[in-house]
């Protein structure tokens, strides 16, 4: 095995343009993500955040431009046989993307099982460990259909962590979750950042997540990175697009808070 597990790898996005027919979704995106860094890509709906992360994960090929992970071009990395990959990349999807016919344990160990890299005993032990890490211990034999949205996200994160990856891409990891679950998932990602020296790219429109997990944020707007910096710098940005995004996010956040207070009042 050539690979030293879970070290973290850098990502470089160089002038990436991506078009669907006549529609240009990304218009010259440039980014550098350092090894071990957690970057949040923020932006409104339809700004191409998910497309960007899919391009980085090698699920789509950019119309032009280059994306490198750990110094390797993405197609070059994708073409390597699984046992020759010098580093591993995992991804957590918006809809969790757990295979419905497999149990939680089978989902979590799927990659190891398919590549025959671990014994049954090792896979079971890894599964137990990562399920505990995402606070889903004891759910090994459940089917995804028996889990709530938040639980599915946790299992998806456990599946991503099971192979001890160097890089994790998250595509809207808190989509369709309520504020409480959003915070819980955010805390889990933050814990991964604290406990594992890996690189994480989190695509989201959720400011709570950005606040909890980001070493750095990048604002995607009009197909380009409009701004990059720390979360605090981002909050004081003077860029009109970023300001309007922040205003909208604050309005939504305060409305959510008010709703939560109402709910608590009713319960009490």
């Amino acid at each position: 095995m050539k690979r030293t597990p879970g070290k973290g790898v850098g990502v470089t996005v160089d002038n990436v343009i991506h078009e669907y027919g006549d529609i240009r979704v990304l218009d010259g995106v440039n980014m550098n993500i350092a090894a071990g860094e957690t970057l949040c890509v923020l932006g409104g709906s339809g700004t191409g955040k998910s497309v960007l992360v899919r391009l980085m994960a090698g699920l789509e090929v950019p119309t032009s431009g280059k994306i490198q992970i750990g110094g390797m071009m993405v197609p070059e990395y994708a073409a390597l046989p699984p046992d020759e990959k010098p580093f591993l990349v995992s991804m957590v999807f918006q809809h969790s993307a757990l295979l419905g016919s497999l149990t939680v344990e089978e989902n979590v160990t799927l990659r190891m099982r398919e590549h025959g890299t671990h014994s049954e005993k090792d896979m079971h032990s890894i599964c137990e460990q990562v399920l505990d890490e995402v606070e889903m211990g004891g759910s090994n034999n459940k089917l995804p259909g028996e889990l709530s949205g938040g639980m599915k996200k946790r299992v998806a994160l456990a599946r991503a962590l099971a192979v001890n990856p160097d890089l994790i891409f998250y595509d809207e990891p808190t989509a369709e979750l309520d504020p409480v679950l959003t915070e819980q998932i955010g805390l889990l990602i933050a814990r991964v950042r604290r406990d594992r020296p890996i690189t994480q790219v989190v695509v989201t429109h959720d400011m709570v997540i950005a606040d909890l997990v980001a070493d750095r944020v990048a604002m995607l707007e009009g197909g380009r990175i409009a701004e990059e910096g720390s979360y605090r710098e981002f909050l004081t940005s003077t860029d009109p697009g970023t300001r309007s995004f922040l205003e909208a996010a604050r309005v939504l956040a305060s409305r959510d808070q008010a709703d939560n207070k109402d709910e608590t009042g009713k319960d009490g």
Partner: protein
Amino acid sequence: MTEPGTAGIVQRCGRTVLDTLSMSGEVLLLLGRSIPGPRSLWRERPRIVEQMIIVGSETLPIASLVAFFIGMVLVVQTADQLVNYSQEVLGSIVGLSMTKELGPVLIAFLVAGRVGSSITAQIGSMAVYDEVSALRTMDIDPERYLVTPRITAMALALPVLILYADAVGILGGCLAVQLDPAINISLALFWDNLVNEIAMQDIVVGLVKGVVFGVTIATVSCAFGLRTRGGTAGVASSTTQSVVWSFVLVIVFDFIIVRMAVLLP
């Protein structure tokens, strides 16, 4: 007014032809990439067996019912046509119709409608909800994981189902001969004529059709599933298209195989 209308029709026809060619290419490429080698077959055997069980359990009950009644209808209808001639040939007509044509095509249509559509819907949902992408990010080839077991299972299961449908259809025919007062030959005569006239070659042609139809239905169903986009509406549209394509291709390949079989010595 006529000019844009004509142009519109030409444009639509052109688009349909291009889409058909593009889809045919996709299906052929998928088939080429998914044909398993011996090692792959061995490795995928649990999933192949699982898929064979699905094909069998989804098709057997309805296949039994339909084949049984087709056999009976065939006897009654043919006997009516032969009312002024000898009904002694009834056995060979029913036997050859079932083994060479009705059994294979009937089973292919049933499998396309029940199993093929569910394959497209299942893989289509997996594509829409990023499960196929998740496999890719785990370095698991979706074609090996999803398509190869289904193609192999269908190629193995359809000939068996066809043999079963032939047997049940002939059984239905026997029952009609026995019970229908309009039929004036004995069951023994019907059976002797049937057994004497059906050659091994006729059964083999039916089985070859089964393999070809199985591979066709599985490949088409998987191809439409994998190219599904656009949520549940996309899944519904892909499923309908895959069933239509499967029906059409089954008939086309049926003709080709029959034509080739006629050339055999």
